[in-house]
């Protein structure tokens, strides 16, 4: 136990995801020894992000205004809607420069074991968007794990009742990987999702 402010800082840092007691202590002492302007810059960044950032009212991505820059961009294809779990998935897909449609962030994935069902996600808002926007295809880009698959399955059934075309991101071999190191599930999916490379 340290005195006053140092212990308070260690306690607060320890609340952050992935930061254990030892890491919290290390970061706290780093901040204690660092230049005051650097520490203030960090404090300002935290204060500013809480004061200025919010979630886009349309797609639920992080945004500085009521609508995010992707929702405001007129060059985006309104007929394609990519559904992702988290805002960081939007960034990952944007890095590919392959997708020019719009996004819908669910805010997580269905996980019954954690008590998270469809009602805890932005699925109702997705249905409202599909009613109001000229979407022709919904791309389900949830993670290829048990929660992401359950979410994609739930959404695909829902979209079928709304008569909207739903597609799922392909699963398969990582570029640069070796075939014999691939696990059976991934390799099996790569086979079932194979495509023509015809002449």
């Amino acid at each position, binding site marked *: 136990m340290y005195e006053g402010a140092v212990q308070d800082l260690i306690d607060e840092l320890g609340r952050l995801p992935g930061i254990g007691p030892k890491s919290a202590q290390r970061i706290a002492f780093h901040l204690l020894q660092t230049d005051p302007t650097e520490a203030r810059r960090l404090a300002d960044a935290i204060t500013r992000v809480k004061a200025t950032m919010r979630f886009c009212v349309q797609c639920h991505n992080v945004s500085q205004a009521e609508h995010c820059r992707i929702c405001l961009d007129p060059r985006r294809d309104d007929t394609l809607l990519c559904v992702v779990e988290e805002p960081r998935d939007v960034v990952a897909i944007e890095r590919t420069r392959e997708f020019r449609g719009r996004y819908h962030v669910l805010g997580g994935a269905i996980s*019954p074991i954690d008590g998270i069902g469809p009602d805890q996600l932005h699925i109702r808002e997705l249905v409202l968007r599909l009613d109001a926007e000229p979407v022709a295809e919904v791309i389900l880009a949830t993670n290829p*794990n048990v929660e992401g698959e359950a*979410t994609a399955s739930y959404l695909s*059934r829902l979209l079928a009742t709304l008569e909207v075309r739903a597609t799922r991101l392909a699963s398969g071999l990582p570029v640069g990987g070796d075939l014999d190191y691939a696990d059976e599930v991934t390799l099996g999916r790569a086979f079932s999702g194979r495509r023509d490379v015809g002449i």
Partner: protein
Amino acid sequence: MPSYRDQGVVLRTYRLGETDRIVHLLTRGRGKVRAVAKGVRRPGSRFGGRLEAYSLVDLQLHEGRNLDVVTQAELLTAHAEVRADYARSAAAAVMVELADQVVQEGEAEPEVLELLLAGLGALAAGPDDPSVFVDAYLLRLAGLVGFPATAAVCAACQAPGPHVFLSVRAGGALCPDCAPAGTRAVDPEVVASLAQLAAIGEWASLPRLAREHPVARRTAAAYARAFVEHHLDRRLRSYEHVPRP
């Protein structure tokens, strides 16, 4: 640190750090095992796809101080069909949640593992209504760990049945002499449904039970949940997410 090999079902996983996962396993030899699987969230991971929930895997692990470490994993049964369907995945979530809660680390429970594998196998077969397998699993697991739901005889005096007074606290059906005042009498079909749900071994006829006696089956399902939550003193978070007809 010594290493060991065991087979087990992946019950659930938690994210750890940037690319790792903590995996809860129900193993044949050591009961529940908690282990770290390093780097499995990377797309190029050599065994990430094998350590998804509901998979039966053959594992090589190193013993650790708090958590063991998975060093190799071979897939025996993926149960991928279960993960690919929302209703079946939600049903499987109840099964693994209860197994995770009742099995202790270091205590082998081979019968519980076999029951879980049978339940996952029944779900993988693609039933129209997976929820009936959940109800059966709950009662059967409770029976395996010492809390059988008694349907054929009176739960208090063992007088031969069938009896129609159902009590969660008493552990099953009660005869008119043993039933406390105010105990609700149910349709005999409910008690018959309970007996069928709780009988270890039979899974194939359960969908027919659900189709032919939908009302009795709904009452039996509500009883199964109340029974397990009372006697095992566990609340099942995933139960409410299982779609029911």
